[in-house]
């Protein structure tokens, strides 16, 4: 993108180059926001409701559009038209800014997320660092929302969120270290380029520590995204709606937009860091076709993890705040540290990686998936026996 703008600036010397670059980046950013991020966040809400409904033997939204597909648009429209209630006793400037800050935090993360070999807003050389840093803006927004609402439940939610997100930043960052060690770069494109399209070339199969890192990363990312079982900040049955209690209309929707959008960020990060990102076999020389294939590859990989997050949310209860902290500091942080050390040792032993280890790890994961699939089949068969085959 930057190269393109540089070229544009060179071709039009009468316009100040900086202005052109800034305007160009903003225009491109807006395009990505409106064409990709908002629809993805919206559609994720529809998918989540349908997946949930299916798991809970309900139907879910099915009225607006085919299979209820346009439900997210209807909801968005409804929320835009709703009155924006601002309670009298709130700290108004903070209360108004908070949702924007949350949305800004998650939208800004998309800057460094690769959608394909050439599809990235800016291939920052500190890409992954930038993402972890900028997503922390979300916690500021949530804390602001909780504090400014002048409501004790909101404040508890805000404080919970701050504790949770700040704590989980640490294991999250530590689980990224091994990936950076292996690929030798912080750039998201560089990390993707260090992997191949075949599963055994993915980072998650590089060595056993990275496999564990991958699992830890997903857990921490769920906690970062306030998803069940870590949805304490908005724990419905405890804190009503947590930090979002006093919000209504579009402002309230923005929080949830950020949550659903964050899901995609989590999925895309998992895909980029551990699962080969947009890597596809070089089946054609046509760059456009290749870019489309790459885009769909990473999109599907990311969406698989979005689906898993929904599945987890529909299955697990919520843990308590002290358990949350204990899990983070007593288990995740030490394990993540060990992984970093382990990967470093592994790198010393096998500087080029080991194909045997890779194949073995793929086999292990396949075996786990096989056992899991058998269990699923057993439960499905039992449910069918009870007359719950087809919903």
């Amino acid at each position, binding site marked *: 993108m930057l190269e393109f703008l540089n070229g544009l600036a060179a071709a039009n010397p009468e316009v100040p180059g900086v202005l052109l670059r800034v305007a160009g980046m903003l225009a491109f950013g807006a395009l990505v926001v409106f064409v990709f991020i908002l629809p993805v966040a919206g559609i994720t809400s529809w998918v989540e409701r349908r997946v949930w409904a299916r798991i809970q033997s309900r139907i879910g939204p099915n009225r607006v559009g085919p299979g209820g597909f346009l439900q997210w648009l209807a909801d968005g429209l409804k929320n835009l038209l709703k009155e924006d209630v601002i309670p009298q006793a709130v700290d108004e400037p903070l209360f108004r800014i908070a949702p924007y800050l949350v949305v800004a935090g998650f939208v800004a993360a998309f800057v460094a997320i690769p959608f394909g070999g050439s599809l990235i807003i800016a291939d920052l050389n500190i890409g992954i660092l930038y993402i972890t840093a900028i997503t922390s803006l979300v916690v500021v927004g949530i804390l602001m929302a909780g504090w400014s609402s002048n409501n004790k439940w909101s404040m508890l939610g805000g404080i919970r969120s701050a504790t949770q997100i700040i704590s989980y930043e640490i294991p999250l960052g530590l689980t990224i270290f091994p990936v950076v060690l292996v690929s030798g770069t912080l750039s998201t494109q560089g990390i993707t380029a260090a992997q191949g399209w075949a599963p055994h070339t993915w980072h998650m199969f590089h060595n056993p520590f990275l496999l564990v890192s991958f699992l830890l990363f997903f857990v921490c990312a769920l906690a970062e995204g306030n998803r069940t079982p870590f949805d304490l900040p908005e724990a419905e*049955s405890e804190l009503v709606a947590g930090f979002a209690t006093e919000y209504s209309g579009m402002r309230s929707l923005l929080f949830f937009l950020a949550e659903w959008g964050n899901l995609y960020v989590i999925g895309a990060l998992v895909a980029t860091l551990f699962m080969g990102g947009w890597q596809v076999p070089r089946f054609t020389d046509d760059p456009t076709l290749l870019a489309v294939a790459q885009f769909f590859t990473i999109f599907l990989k990311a969406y698989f993890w979005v689906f898993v997050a929904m599945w987890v949310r529909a299955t697990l209860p919520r843990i308590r705040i002290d358990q949350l902290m204990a899990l983070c500091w007593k288990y995740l942080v030490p394990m993540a540290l060990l992984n970093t050390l382990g990967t470093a040792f592994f790198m010393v032993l096998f500087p080029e990686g080991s194909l045997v280890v890779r194949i073995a790890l793929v086999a292990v994961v396949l075996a786990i998936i096989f056992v899991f699939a058998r269990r699923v089949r057993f439960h499905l068969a039992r449910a069918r026996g009870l007359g719950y085959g087809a919903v």
Partner: protein
Amino acid sequence: MSVEIEFTDDHGSAGGFATEEMTLNMGPQHPSTHGVLRFVVKADGEVMRRAVPDVGYLHRSIEKIAEKVGWHGFMPYTDRVDYVAAMTCNQAWAMAAESLGGVEVPRRAEYCRVIAAELGRICSHLLAFGAMGMDIGAFTPFTHAIREREMINDLLEELCGARLTFNYLRIGGVAWDLPPDYAHKVLRFLDRFIPLVDEFDDLLSNNKIYIERLADVAVISPEMAIAYNLVGPNLRASGVDYDLRRDRPYSVYPDFDFTVPVGKGTWGSVGDCWERYIVRLHEMRESAKIVRQALEGLPGGPVIAKVRRNFKPPAGEVHIRVETPRGDQSWYVVSDGSERPYRVHIRTGSFSAMSIIESLSNGLMIADLVALIASLDVVAPEVDR
């Protein structure tokens, strides 16, 4: 996983920063209060020092109403005492009136009552199960429980035309006999339902997070349970093996063979939240057994005794205790020989359960309070009447 919290009366004056207790108002409208309950919570951050229940938001003066409507006329109001398990409240009132008036209930009517009451118990426990999962943050069990509850509601609707406030019992018997082919329908439901209880176990009971959240939380010792007059599943979860249906049998319960589940401390201590939860799950199985036996042994004959329209029991007073899903419901009914009850007092299971919360609350976390309320299966209308 748990944290050790030291309590100091002077809030952190020992060198650290000064902290301040926060007063939280939980309810009357709060997602986890199962109706309209209110707690005034004194909390030090997430840790509670004290949670004072404030009840009465659903007070409908049912006891006063009883003094204004006739003996027969009070029956629909008893549904509203505990609308989650209306059938057993009906039963208590019918038993009180029959006991005062010396009415002999036909055997078939007693069987119909037991079938209805036990189906109602499954219904109530299903709601408790689902709501408890919901309060701990697992949303899926709720819809699965409600799906099954709908089927019982259908069955009960077929029996008496209502799905929630049944008004099925009458003084001297029941309003209607079982509809044709009813036994077959109920048995078909039970055949399908009981394996599902195992599925509930898979879904929720043995979930690691669920156990961590509930085991060893808000432990009630048997002595404390008795002193606070906890009843029903809450009492049994504390290890007191007592069930009115077995130990002070009424109606035709001696005819049936069933076990009484008691808390065993599977994952934590006897009397913790998880035990209270699992006892209810097991009771569903036992209730299903009773329904099955009642349907098999259903005698013939009339379903209602001859009771005067203008029912005037002789002066006197009775204490009736009935095992409702929320435990021993104690009715004190006084008759002065007139066509209206002189005094009715209902001590419900939820009332006792609510009164114990304050003494348990110190040191629990706010999330634990939610778990505690859910595990005691407090139903707000039953507290307030």
